[in-house]
């Protein structure tokens, strides 16, 4: 699948396109479909997201998993500081990243 990701303009947080808006959580990401470029153009114009791009991902039983390690690290947080990641209480959170 192809999903759209970007960074929140104000905070720099990694965000994912949900079909209706933006979420911090990769599992909320949806198939971007054939209108990805149009969505990006429209959302960029709103000036709330920056550095938008379409990336490859796979929908697994555990959720959406970006294909490239860089995007998986973006989705979770630094692997060396899981306390600063989106799942600080889950010691196994990083297992799917690497």
């Amino acid at each position, binding site marked *: 699948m192809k999903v759209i990701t970007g960074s929140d303009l*104000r905070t720099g947080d990694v965000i994912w396109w949900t079909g209706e808006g933006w979420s911090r959580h990769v599992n909320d990401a949806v198939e971007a479909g054939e209108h990805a470029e149009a969505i990006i153009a429209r959302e960029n114009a709103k000036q709330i997201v920056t550095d938008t791009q379409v990336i490859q991902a796979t929908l697994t039983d555990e959720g959406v998993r970006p294909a490239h390690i860089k995007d998986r690290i973006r989705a979770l947080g630094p692997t060396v*500081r899981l306390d600063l990641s989106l799942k600080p209480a889950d010691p196994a959170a990083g297992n799917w990243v690497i």
Partner: protein
Amino acid sequence: MYQYDQYDQAMVDARVAEFRDQVERRLAGDITEDQFKPLRLKNGLYLQLHAYMLRVAVPYGTLNSRQMRMLGDIADKYDRGYGHFTTRQNIQYNWIKLQDAPDILADLASVEMHAIQTSGNCIRNTTSDQFAGAAADELVDPRPYAELLRQWSTFHPEFDYLPRKFKIAIIGSETDRAAMKLHDIGIQLVKNDAGEIGCRFYVGGGMGRTPMIAPVIGDFISPLQMVSYAEACLRVYNRYGRRDNKYKARIKILVHEIGADEYRRQVEEEFAHILTLGLEPPAAELERIKGFFEQPGFDANASDELDLSDPDFALWVDQNVHAHKQPGYAIVNISLKPTGGIPGDATADQIRLMADLALEHSFDELRVTHAQNIVLPHVKKADLYAIWQKLDEAGLAAANLDLIGDIIACPGLDYCSLANARSIPVAQKISNRFADLGRQRELGELKLKISGCINACGHHHAGHIGILGVDRKGVENYQLLLGGCEGADTSLGTITGPGFNEDGIVDAVEKATDVYLAQRVDGERFVDTFRRIGMAPFKEAIYAKETANG
């Protein structure tokens, strides 16, 4: 230390106000990201993997306690409680919000700091010897000259859009602690037989994807003409440096392609022209700047006696304390490399503690080193034990300076959008593998440096053992380099062969150290043994097991 005059402060304050307006316009949607990006980069604000990253300049790595304390406070107030000291003697914050950036810059300006020229194709923060003004082997204190270069290069309109970024290092000792020959310009202050001071210009060094050691271009330039000579070096580069290909745009490529002799000829021609213009900073200005760097009020009766009955303290003194030019004083190196830690990271509390120690024990001075450590430059030997105890309580007493545990590592793929592989986990695994301090000391001086991509922010080319992370079809892979070195005997590392996965590279490093231990002769460092016996024995050992396993 240098203190801002009204011009310095006015410029920095104006820049904060300007950036505040730019951020407001961006957040209001009045300017696009394409328009805004170069503006934020001019103020050291990058967009990295997880958030905005702010890189703060620490001119020639020198700080006072007020500035250091502010760095700790910023980490608490605007970031996530820590900062990352870099190989450019700067500090980076990894979790900055765009809306907070103007306030951070205002806080920095209140203590005479900024983030100007920490990004972009301009002259970056000048780096220097972290022991400047303190080292027993120093010929000339490089800090006044570094400050002169800072003033000349800051907002220099002619060099604001160079073909690529430009890095200058300056030292005043025979011992090069600043990797000077691996900079775009390295300046070594030397003395001739008559005792006169001159500037030896090394031009065209660098790391990155095409590492090169800088040749000598100007052998003995008068310090009063240092700025004009640097200007001539940059003018020739600005005129002929490649702007068509960013991978060939650094000055090292120009010097290499036209040759050092032709580059020198052009620089000399430009230099002669510049001298006719009378633009050189007046001698009185250099003297005024020197006034900020006068020797602190040392206690002439300070004792050299040290009670080394505490064995842990004795180890720390032996490894981390360096000779000072003043009897009764010492230079303290605070390692930011605890076993299994993240190289260069320090918490806000640790940063403030180091500020307090500097105020109380080091004439209010600290230095950031390019090896991602902190230095207290002027410490009375009688105070060392008390300082060590406080550092130990705060997790800052790792006695591993210049040992294999004192690893340089870039942020890598855990933070950096340019990286291809993670650096920090590799550093942590090697640190844990060699956690035994006795084993580290048995190996002796061994500089291990890790970069997460070819840009070489982790200086892997200059490591006795270097590691380069690459992306192999979406999988992290690590190449091993041996034989690199910075300093007077600068050399570039050579790749051993096929790369390794994360665990494999740790094993490979250990095998290389085993070869060294088996082959070394008395007094040899790892890199000395490598130079004597060559790559073959290392390669044989490193790849033997892989072959056996098929």
